């Protein structure tokens, strides 16, 4: 399946990207490994995951076309 990953805040700076598409993903764990390959150490940052704009558990079930957002601690206001 194809998954779009969005990076915000410090993670956009760390990866140098706002978004990246991943093809041939079969699970969140697979996506996690692919992200770790592309951006070593990324999972050492403090962030939560949202799937299709809803914050989820650590190991969400993904489906084709999902949007996975990496959300560092919020700082609005």
């Amino acid at each position: 399946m194809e998954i779009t990953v969005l990076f915000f805040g410090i993670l956009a700076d760390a990866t140098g990207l706002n978004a990246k598409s991943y093809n041939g993903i079969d699970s969140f764990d697979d996506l996690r490994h692919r992200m770790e390959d592309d951006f070593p150490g990324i999972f050492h940052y403090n962030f939560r995951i949202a799937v299709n704009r809803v914050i989820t558990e650590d190991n969400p079930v993904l489906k084709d076309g999902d949007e996975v957002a990496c959300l560092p601690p919020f700082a609005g206001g």
Partner: protein
Amino acid sequence: MRLIEGPLMPGLIAEVIAGSGGSHDTGAHALFLGQVRRDRIDGRFVKAIEYSAYEEMVIMEANKISKTILSEFEDVRAFEILHSRGMVKAGETALLVIVSAGHRQQALAACGKAVDLINERLPVWKKELFEDEPDL
């Protein structure tokens, strides 16, 4: 909820306040303005903050915050949030929350609660820019 490019200028703030006055059963408006501070961090002064937002989720979360406020404070009649994105200089306004209610107690309490929820739940991030850095 509205995301505004750059600072919330005085004219816009005045328009939002004027637009809140229509209902005759409203007796109180509580207003919060969040302003960028010239903080000193590790000996360097902040000259501006660049705000970024996950826009689609900001709108969803703001709707949830609005529902929470309207259900917890039954005297609240209207509620509006404006938040900046992009560059806002020290001394400029980046957040406006206005709550209109029948009476002042609920207007003030709901406004305080809304600001807390915005800080906790709105997917917005800030990046400090310092006085010793060149302008972008």
